C-alpha cells in the first residue's frame, strides 16, 4: 500500500529546476488549489445571493484592517505556523501525522498541569511548561511511530484514532483531579500560576512571545533538516525508504525520530494555547489545528520555512472569518469549505498539466 510514500511524492514534484523556477514550481499547485477553492466558495455565495467580493473584502478587513484584526491574525498565525511545521517534518520523512490534534491535546494538558501544579522561577515557568507539553506530544506520537516500526500499521490511521483516545484521557484526568470547581457546565481545569502565563507584547489581543518562538522553531527545524546529517537521513528515508534501507541508513530510527519531533512541535502548540491564551486547560480547546496544520503544510508544499508565510495566510483566513460572520451574517463554515477545497485540489497535479497544456495550445494559435 502506498501511503506515506505517495504523500511524500506528491509533495516533491520539483524536477531538474533551480532558483526562481524551483520556487515557482513549488508555488504552482498551492496557488491553483487556492484559486479553485475561491471559485467554489464564490459559487456557493452567489447561490445564497451574497456578493463574494464583499465577503473577501470583509475577510481582509477583519484580519488586517485594524490593530485588533492584526493582533487576531498574529494570534492565530502563532499555533498555525507550528502546526504546519509539525506536519511538514512528518512529510519530510514520508510520514503523515494525521493525529496532530491528539498530540496538541495532551500537550495542552501537560503544559497546563506544569503551569498550575509546579512552582518555578517566573522566566523559566512558561518555558518549562512548553517543553513539557512538547514532550507529552512526542510521547503520544511515539505510539503510532512504534506501531509503524514494529507492526507496519499505518501511522495515518493509528495516530488519528489516538486523537480520540487523547481527548478521553485528558478530559477524564481533568474531571477527576484538576477540575475548576467554579466551572459549571464547561469542563476546565484550575487556572495556571500567574508567572506561568506567556507574556504578551502587543497592545491588544492575545499575541504572546510565542509568535517568535514559533518562527524560531520553524527556522531551526528547516536548518536542521537541510544541513544536519540526521536531517539528511530523514529526508532520504522520506524520499525513498527502500533506497535508504538499502544504502545502510538507520531508517527505522529516523522514522521514529521524525514522528516524535513532529509530535513534540504539536505538543508545544497545546501547551502554548493553554498557558498563553486560555491560562488553563479547557476541554475541546483545539479548534481544529490538526487540519489547519495539514493545510499550512500543503500550502508550504514541503518546505519547512514556507510554513511561516503559509501560517500567516491561514491566520488571515481564521481572523477574517469572524468578521464575515459578524458583519455579513455569512456562516464562517464557508472558510472551512474554502480550506477543504484547497486540500482537495492541492495535489491534483494533472489539473496543472491540463491548464498548462491549454495555455500552450492557446499560445500556439
Amino acid at each position, binding site marked *: 500500500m502506498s501511503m506515506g510514500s505517495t504523500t511524500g511524492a506528491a509533495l516533491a514534484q520539483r524536477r531538474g529546476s533551480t532558483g526562481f523556477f524551483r520556487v515557482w514550481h513549488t508555488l504552482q499547485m498551492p496557488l491553483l488549489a487556492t484559486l479553485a477553492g475561491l471559485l467554489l466558495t464564490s459559487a456557493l455565495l452567489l447561490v*445564497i445571493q451574497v456578493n463574494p467580493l464583499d465577503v473577501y473584502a470583509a475577510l481582509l478587513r477583519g484580519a488586517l484592517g485594524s490593530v485588533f484584526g492584526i493582533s487576531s491574525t498574529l494570534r492565530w498565525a502563532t499555533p498555525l505556523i507550528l502546526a504546519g511545521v509539525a506536519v511538514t517534518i512528518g512529510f519530510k520523512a514520508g510520514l503523515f501525522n494525521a493525529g496532530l490534534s491528539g498530540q496538541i491535546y495532551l500537550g495542552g494538558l501537560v503544559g497546563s498541569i506544569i503551569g498550575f501544579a509546579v512552582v518555578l522561577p517566573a522566566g523559566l515557568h512558561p518555558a518549562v511548561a512548553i517543553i513539557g507539553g512538547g514532550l507529552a506530544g512526542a510521547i503520544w506520537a511515539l505510539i503510532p511511530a512504534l506501531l509503524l516500526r514494529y507492526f507496519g*500499521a499505518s501511522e495515518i490511521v493509528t495516530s488519528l484514532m489516538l486523537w480520540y483516545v487523547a481527548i478521553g484521557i485528558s478530559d477524564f484526568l481533568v474531571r477527576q483531579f484538576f477540575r475548576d470547581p467554579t466551572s459549571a457546565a464547561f469542563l476546565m481545569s484550575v487556572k495556571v500560576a500567574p508567572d506561568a502565563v506567556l507574556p504578551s507584547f502587543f497592545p491588544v489581543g492575545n499575541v504572546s512571545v510565542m509568535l517568535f518562538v514559533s518562527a524560531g522553531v520553524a527556522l531551526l527545524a528547516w536548518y536542521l533538516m537541510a544541513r544536519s546529517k540526521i536531517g539528511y537521513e530523514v529526508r532520504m528515508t522520506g524520499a525513498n525508504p*527502500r533506497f535508504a534501507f538499502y544504502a545502510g541508513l538507520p531508517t527505522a530510527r529516523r522514522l521514529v525520530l521524525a514522528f516524535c519531533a513532529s509530535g513534540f512541535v504539536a505538543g508545544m502548540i497545546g501547551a502554548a494555547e493553554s498557558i498563553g491564551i486560555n491560562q488553563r486547560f479547557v476541554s475541546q480547546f483545539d479548534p481544529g489545528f490538526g487540519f489547519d496544520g495539514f493545510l499550512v503544510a500543503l500550502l508550504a508544499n514541503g518546505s519547512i520555512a514556507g510554513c511561516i508565510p503559509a501560517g500567516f495566510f491561514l491566520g488571515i483566513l481564521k481572523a477574517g472569518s469572524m468578521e464575515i460572520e459578524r458583519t455579513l451574517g455569512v456562516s464562517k463554515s464557508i472558510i472551512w469549505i474554502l480550506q*477543504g477545497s484547497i486540500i482537495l485540489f492541492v495535489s491534483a497535479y494533472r489539473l496543472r498539466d491540463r491548464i498548462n497544456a491549454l495555455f500552450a495550445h492557446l499560445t500556439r494559435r
Partner: protein
Amino acid sequence: MEILTLSLVSSTLVVATPLILAAMGGLFSHQAGIFNFTLEGLMLFGSFFSVMFTVLTGNLWVGLLLGALSCTALAVIWGWVVVDLGADQIISALGFMLLAQGGTVFLMIAVLSQTGGVFSPLQLDIIRLPWLNAVPVLGSVLNGHTLLTYLSWLTLPLFLFVIYRTPYGLSLRAVGEKPEAAAAAGINVRFVRYSAIAITGVCCSLAGAQLALGLLGMFTDNMTAGRGIIAFAAVIFGRHRPLQVFLVALFFGFAGALTDRLQGFGLPSELLLTLPYVMTVVVLALSGWRTFTRAQSGHVKA
C-alpha cells in the same frame, strides 16, 4: 454477567449498522484499487442530505433517495479529482472530510436556516417480522430493527455475489490488482473506478442516514464523529474482502455497544468512549504487519 445479555447483541446490531454499510461500501473502492478515505466525509454528507431532503419533501423515502443521489454525486466528484486529476488519495480525502464538515453546516444554515442541528419530522420505522420470532433464542434480537439494518446484512451475500460471480466483479478485481493489465484486456478502467466509488457513495449515504434517521431522528454538526474512520479501519483490517470486512465491522459495532453498556455501570464515560478507538488501533497493529510492509523490512511496494 448481566452486561452480556441478549440486548447487548441487539444493540451491537444497531451500532454496527452504519459501520457495516460504510465499510462494505468502502471495500468496493479498495477492490478497484482506490484507497478511499472519504468514508467519514461521505457519511456526514449522507446524514445531512437525508435529513435535509426529508425535511424539504416531507417524505422519508424521497429523502433517503435524494440523499443517496447527492452523496453519490459528491463521491463521484472526489473520484474525478483522484482518477482524472491525479490527486493524492489520502490528502484529497482529508480535504473532502473538511468540505463535508463545512458544507453541511453551511447548507444547514443556507437551506434550512438552522444552526447546530436539525430535527427530522420522520424517522425510519422499526420493522417487526412476526415469523422472525420463531427463530430460537436470537429471534427477538434479530427482530425490531430499521430497514437499513436488514439492508446492511443483505450487503454481504449481495457483494460476495457481485464481486466473485459477475463479469463486473471480474473487471473490478482485475482493475484493483493490475490496472494496466485490465486496460490491455479492454476493460474500461475509468468506468470501473468511477462506478466503484459511486457504490461507496451510495452505501456511505445510507450509513449516514441510519445514524440520522434511524438512531437519532436528527442531524447535528459533525455527528459521525470518527465512525467513518472506524469503518475505513474495518476495510483495511478485513483486506477489502466482503466477509472479513463484514465481521470486523460487526466487531467494532460490538465494541461500541459494549461501551454504551458499560457507561450505564457508572464507569468513567470519557475513558469508555475511547474503547472503540483503542480497539481499532490494536486491531490495525495486529493486521498491519501484513497490510503495510514498510521501510524497516526493506520491502516497499511502490
